C-alpha cells in the first residue's frame, strides 16, 4: 500500500466512523419522543431564598477525590490527589452547569480544600459557589484562636477571600449521652465562635451560614428553636437524606433520626436543605440482584444510583444534592440524572419505600466510607472491613450460616479470599482491640467495635467450618 492509498483508506474510514456516530445520535434522540429522558436538557437549578443564588441541583462533594494510584485515598492511602483529574472533573462539572462545590478542612487527609482551590481558581470566582466547614472536631482546636485559624486557613487553601456557604461541621456529634450537646457548646458557643462567624457574614466573608447535622437530635432541634426565636438565622442546613434513611434511619440505629423528620422541620421554616449521602457512600448504588431487578422492572435503563439521586432531588426544599464523586463516569451519570431532574412520581416513590424495607432487612453495616473514623490508631481499615461485608451482601455472595449447604465451601473460600484481597491481613477485624477511639468520629453512630467483632466472629465461623 503506498502513501496515497493509505491516506485514501484513512479518509474513507474516518467518514464511515462519522456516519456511524451520526447514526447513533439520531437514533438516541428519536427514541426520546414518548418521554423526556435524563440528560437531554439542562441542569435543574434551585433558588436560595436568602441570597437569590441559583444553585445547581447536583453539588460536587470533594470528599472522595481521586488519587494518582487509582481510586480514592481509601484504595491507596499514600497516594497523592490526582490534581489533573480533579481539574478535569471540575471543568466538566462547570461546563455542565454544576456550580456548588462542597469541601472541608478534614476531607482527604486534609488535602481536599487545596485541591478544590487549585481547580476552581482557574475559573471566574462568580461562576461557582464554595461550601466549606469549620471542622474543629478535635478538642485541641476548640479554642477561639484555633477555630479562627481553621477558617482563615480554609480561605487560604481555597485561594479566595470569601466563602459562599459555611457550615458548622457535624453538629450533634458524637451521639450518645450528652456528648453531642457538650461538643456543640465547646466548639461553637463557649468560645464565641458562632457569633464571630455571624460577624464574618456581616463583613461579607461568609455569604450563607448554616450547619451540617449528624447524631444527637436535641442539638438539631435547639438550633431550629434559636432560628424561630430570631437568635440566629440559618441560611441553609445540610442533612443526610436518601430513601433508606427517609423512614429507616431510626430503625437502623436508635440514636439516629429519620430524614423525613429532618427535612420537614427545615422545609416548614423555609430553610433550604443541602443533601448529603444521597447514595450512602455508594451503598445505594450497589444493590443485590433481587432489589436491582425490581427497579429494572419499573425502568429497565435506570441504574440504582439514578433512582437514589432522583429520590434525593425530588423534594422541592432541597437546594442541592451532594455526591462525593471520584470518577468522571459518576459525574457524567449524575449530571445526566439532573439535566433535568425527573421528579419521582407517587408510584416510583412507593416502590423505593418498599425496597427500603427490604434493604433494611439485609442488615448490612450502615457505613458510608466517609473515613471520619480513620486512621484507626491500631491500623485497622474500618471502612474497608465494612465494605467487604456489605459488598458480599450486595453481590449475593454471603456464605450460608449452614455449613452443610451444598455450595458452602465454595462461597466460604471466595468470601475469605476476597477479604484478604480487599483488606490486608494486619488491617482486618481480628486486630480490633475494642478501645472505642473511633466511636465519637462516626457520623452514622455505628458501634464500630461491636460491628467489627460481629464480622470477625463470622470469619472465625467460616474458617472453623
Amino acid at each position, binding site marked *: 500500500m503506498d502513501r496515497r492509498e493509505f491516506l485514501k483508506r484513512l479518509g474513507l474510514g474516518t467518514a464511515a466512523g462519522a456516519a456511524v456516530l451520526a447514526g447513533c445520535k439520531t437514533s438516541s434522540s428519536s427514541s426520546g419522543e414518548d418521554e423526556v429522558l435524563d440528560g437531554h436538557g439542562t441542569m435543574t437549578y434551585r433558588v436560595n431564598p436568602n441570597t437569590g443564588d441559583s444553585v445547581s441541583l447536583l453539588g460536587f462533594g470533594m470528599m472522595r477525590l481521586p488519587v494518582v494510584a487509582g481510586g480514592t485515598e481509601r484504595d491507596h492511602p499514600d497516594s497523592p490527589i490526582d490534581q489533573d483529574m480533579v481539574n478535569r472533573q471540575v471543568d466538566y462539572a462547570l461546563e455542565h452547569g454544576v456550580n456548588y462545590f462542597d469541601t472541608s478542612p478534614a476531607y482527604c487527609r*486534609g488535602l481536599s480544600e487545596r485541591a478544590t482551590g487549585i481547580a476552581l481558581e482557574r475559573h471566574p470566582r462568580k461562576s461557582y459557589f464554595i461550601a466549606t466547614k469549620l471542622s474543629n472536631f478535635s478538642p485541641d482546636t476548640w479554642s477561639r484562636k484555633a477555630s479562627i485559624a481553621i477558617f482563615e486557613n480554609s480561605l487560604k487553601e481555597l485561594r479566595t477571600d470569601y466563602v459562599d456557604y459555611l457550615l458548622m461541621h457535624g453538629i450533634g456529634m458524637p451521639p450518645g449521652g450528652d456528648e453531642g450537646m457538650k461538643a456543640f457548646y465547646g466548639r461553637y458557643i463557649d468560645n464565641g465562635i458562632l457569633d464571630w462567624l455571624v460577624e464574618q457574614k456581616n463583613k461579607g466573608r461568609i455569604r450563607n451560614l448554616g450547619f451540617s447535622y449528624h447524631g444527637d437530635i436535641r442539638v438539631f432541634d435547639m438550633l431550629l428553636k434559636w432560628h424561630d426565636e430570631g437568635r440566629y438565622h440559618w441560611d441553609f442546613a445540610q442533612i443526610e437524606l436518601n430513601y433508606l434513611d427517609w423512614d429507616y434511619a431510626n430503625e437502623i440505629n436508635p440514636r439516629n433520626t429519620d430524614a423525613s423528620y429532618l427535612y420537614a422541620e427545615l422545609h416548614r421554616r423555609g430553610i433550604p436543605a443541602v443533601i448529603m449521602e444521597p447514595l450512602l457512600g455508594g451503598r445505594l448504588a450497589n444493590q443485590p440482584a433481587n432489589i436491582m431487578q425490581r427497579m429494572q422492572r419499573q425502568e429497565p435503563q435506570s441504574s440504582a444510583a439514578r433512582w437514589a439521586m432522583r429520590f434525593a432531588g425530588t423534594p422541592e426544599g432541597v437546594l442541592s444534592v451532594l455526591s462525593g464523586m471520584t470518577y468522571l463516569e459518576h459525574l457524567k451519570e449524575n449530571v445526566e440524572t439532573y439535566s433535568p431532574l425527573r421528579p419521582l412520581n407517587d408510584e416510583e416513590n412507593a416502590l423505593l419505600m418498599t425496597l427500603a424495607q427490604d434493604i433494611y432487612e439485609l442488615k448490612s453495616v450502615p457505613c458510608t466510607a466517609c473515613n471520619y473514623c480513620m486512621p484507626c*490508631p491500631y491500623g485497622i481499615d474500618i471502612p474497608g472491613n465494612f465494605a467487604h461485608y456489605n459488598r458480599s451482601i450486595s453481590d449475593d455472595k454471603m456464605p450460608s450460616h449452614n455449613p452443610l449447604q451444598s455450595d458452602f465451601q465454595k462461597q466460604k473460600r471466595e468470601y475469605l479470599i476476597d477479604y484478604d484481597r480487599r483488606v490486608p491481613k494486619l488491617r482486618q477485624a481480628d486486630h*480490633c482491640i475494642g478501645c472505642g477511639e473511633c466511636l465519637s*468520629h462516626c457520623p452514622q453512630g455505628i458501634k464500630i467495635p461491636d460491628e467489627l467483632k460481629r464480622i470477625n466472629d463470622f470469619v472465625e465461623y467460616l*474458617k472453623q467450618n
Partner: protein
Amino acid sequence: MLRKIRISLASLMLIIITVLLCGINYKLSMAFAWVAKIQFLPALMAFDIVVILFLLLLTALFGRIYCSVICPLGVMQDVFGYVGGKVKKNRFSFSPEKKWLRYGVLFFFVLCLIVGFAPVTTLLAPYSAYGRIINSLIKPICDFINNALADSAAQNGSYLFSEVDIWTRSVTVPVVSVLTLLILALLALANGRTYCNTVCPVGTALSLVARNAIFKIRFDKSKCRNCSLCEKNCKASAIDFKSGTIDYSRCVVCGDCIEVCHFDALRFCAGGAKASDAPAEPDASRRAFIVGAAVAAGGVAAAQTLSKVDGGMAALTEKEAPERQTPLVPAGAVSVDRFKKHCTACQLCVSSCPNNVLRPSTSPERFMQPEMSYERGWCRPECKRCGDVCPAKAISPINGGDKKDIHIGHAVWIESNCLVTSADVACDCCARHCPQGAITMVKTNDNPQKAVPMVDVSKCTGCGACENLCPARPFSAIYVEGHEQHVYS
C-alpha cells in the same frame, strides 16, 4: 530396559516429591504425602515397621534401587550426573570401597540419632537435605509464580489462586541448602554418586542388605571383550571390569552399564545368593537437654494519633519474636525432646503451614528443626496440616477434635508492654480473641481502675491468638511460653 524403567519411575517420584515439598496446594499435598512417608529415615523415625520392612525387602530382592528411584537426593544427583556425562563421556573409573569412611559415618550417625544430636542427623539425612533445597530454592519461586497468578486471578474475579506471604523464615537453611547443592552438584558432575557411596548413612545401611540381594547385575566374563565401557559409565564406581566383579554395596542398579555394553555381558537377574536379615537400626533413646534462660521481651506500645483530618492508615511496626525459654513445637509432637529426636528437618511442615507459624529454629542444638512463633499468624484450631504431612511422625497426626485438648504452651502477660497499664487504653484484645476463653479481663485489688488480662493456664492451649493479635509492637504484651511436655486434657 532396566534403565528406562528406572528413569521413568525416578522422574515420576522426583516430580511428585518436589510438588509435595513446595506445598503448592493442600489437596495435592495430601494426595502425595505418601512419597515422603516411604523415605527410609523418616519411616525409621516414625517407627513405621511396614515401610521399613518393605524397603528392606525391596533392597534384599533388587539391591539399592531405593537409591535410584525413591531417594530424591539420589535422583537429583543423577540429573547432575547426566549433565556431566554430556560434557565428558566415559568419565568414571573403578575405585575400591572406603569401608572405614562409610561405616565410620554410619556409626557416628547412629550414635547421633541415639543421643539426639540434631546438627549431624539433619545435615546427613538425604531426603531432608533434598527437602531443604526445595524449600529454600524452589518454593520461593513457586510462591512468586503463585502470587503473580493470584494477582491476575484477582483482576479477573477468579478464585483459583490466592496470595501467600513470602518472607524469610531462616538464613541458616538456605545457606546450608546452597552449600549442600553445590557440593553434591560438583561431586555428581565429576564423580557421580560419591556422596551416596561414601557418606550417605542410609546408603550404607541399605548396602548391608544389598550386598546379598537376589536380583543383581551379573557380570558374564565369558562375553566380555574388555572394552571397559561398563566401568567408565558406572557412576557408582562399582564395576571392576578387569576382575569382572561388581561391588553390590555401592551399585544403585541404575542399569547404565547394561545399556552401554555391546556384548550383552551384563544382565540383571536372580542368582544363587541368599538374602540376609536386615540389621535393625535402633530407635532414638532419651537424653535431657535444658534450654538456656531467656529474658522477657521488652515492648513498645502502638502510637496514638489524634484524628484531626479524615483518612489515612496508621503505620504498623513489624512484630518481633520474643525469646521463649522453652521452644514451641506443634500439637502432635508430644514433647520438645521427642520432637528433637524424631525430626529430620526436611521442612515439609514449614512449607505446608498456612498460618506462617512454623519456621526453622535458629538454635544450634535443634539445628534447622522447625519451631513455632506467632509474629505472622497463630496456630488456628481447625488446621492440622503439619501432622498430616510429617513423614517422621515427629508431629503425629491429630484425629478429630483433639487439637483443642492439646496444650502446647501457655500465655504469659508482660505488664510493662501492655497498653492497658502503659498507655491507659481500654484494650481487651487478647481476651476477645482467645478461642479457648482462657483470658479474662480482671480488675485486681491492687488496681481497681483498670481491667488487665488474666490467663487461666488450665484452659490455654498456647495457640498464640493473643500473642499474634496483641496491639503492642514490636513485642507483644502477651506471649506463649512452650511446654516441655504437651499436656493432654
